[in-house]
């Protein structure tokens, strides 16, 4: 059983095993986090961040073809990649503070 840490006025701080219901909720959270839908959601968040970081390329008005293609490839991720690719898209490499996403699609041209 997974432990919970709880403070209450009656007991102060205690740690106890999760109840059956709490454990089921905990397990469901793990399942949801590792679901394809949740992974794709996180991938889209990363994509949005990358696009926003390079919006100034667009505003500047003279994007290179490589930059334009790269931004398009980010937009195409949901169609280019399938669920079996999601872990690779989310994989990180290196040590903090130089840790970064490993997949080449995230690298700016």
């Amino acid at each position: 059983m997974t432990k919970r840490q709880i403070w209450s006025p009656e007991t102060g701080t205690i740690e106890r095993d999760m109840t059956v219901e709490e454990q089921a909720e905990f397990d469901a959270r793990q399942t949801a986090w590792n679901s394809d839908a949740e992974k794709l959601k996180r991938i889209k968040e990363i994509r949005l961040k990358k696009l926003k970081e390079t919006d100034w390329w667009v505003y500047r008005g003279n994007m290179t073809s490589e930059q334009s293609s790269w931004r398009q490839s980010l937009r195409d991720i949901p169609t280019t990649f399938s669920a079996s690719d999601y872990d690779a898209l989310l994989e990180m490499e290196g040590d903090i503070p130089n840790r970064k996403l490993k997949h080449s699609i995230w690298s700016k041209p």
Partner: protein
Amino acid sequence: MSSEIKADKWSPASGTAGTIGDSGDTFTVPTGVGLTVTDEVKTNKISPASGTAFTMGDSGDTFTVPSGVTFTNNGTATGFGDTSEYVKIANVNGTNSVGDVSINDCFSTTYRTYLVTFQFENDRNGNQVWLRWQKDDDTTYSGSNYRYACHQTNDSGGTSTRVATGDSKWLMCGGTAGGNTAVFGGIFGFMYVHNPYTIATGEAGAGSIYRVGWNAQYNEYSDSGEVVNSVATGMLEQNSTAVAGLRFLPSANYVAKRNVTVWGLKEY
């Protein structure tokens, strides 16, 4: 020796020092008799002559605690000034891995505003930190009634938002650094919690739609090593039941290092 001495003045028989009685003696100044000492009185203790109440001075008098004097209160002091103060209610901390951290019944009718300070590090990189409010029965509000807006600025100057209506939790941050004792990972900061428990109709915040509002500022150390400043606010879209506590939980796996303190803001 007579049983009564009548004199207008006592003075030392020689020199300048006089002594009254010996150890173990008791001298009583009866009811109705006034005793005026116009200079310094030195004693180790003052107590009520009868009962348990002791009064200093009369209306209009001023008693001064001079500079350099320490005035220690080990009991209960009431009515001192009109300043507010933070009253510590609860603290949880630890470093072992747990599935979540709950503080039950820390909110009540006693205070309207609370301060929550927090530091969290998950047991591994990439997981988020969530918050859910709790009810009187210690279960969480996990319906689609979390409404929040968060603005983030990272150490490269990049900005982003994290917003939601109808979420089932307050998603405080993205993937954070965790499980690495070499860095100060996760998130740390504070938030003010407003009107979580029952408040009277007509008072500020006693709306019919929302119960509990919060505004927060915290640092997120992301899983890619970015320092991210987050400024967030939110409300829980329900007003049918009181919000009695709070629960921090990781998006997956475990919370490792944590330290959470809840304070009530005492208002005068």
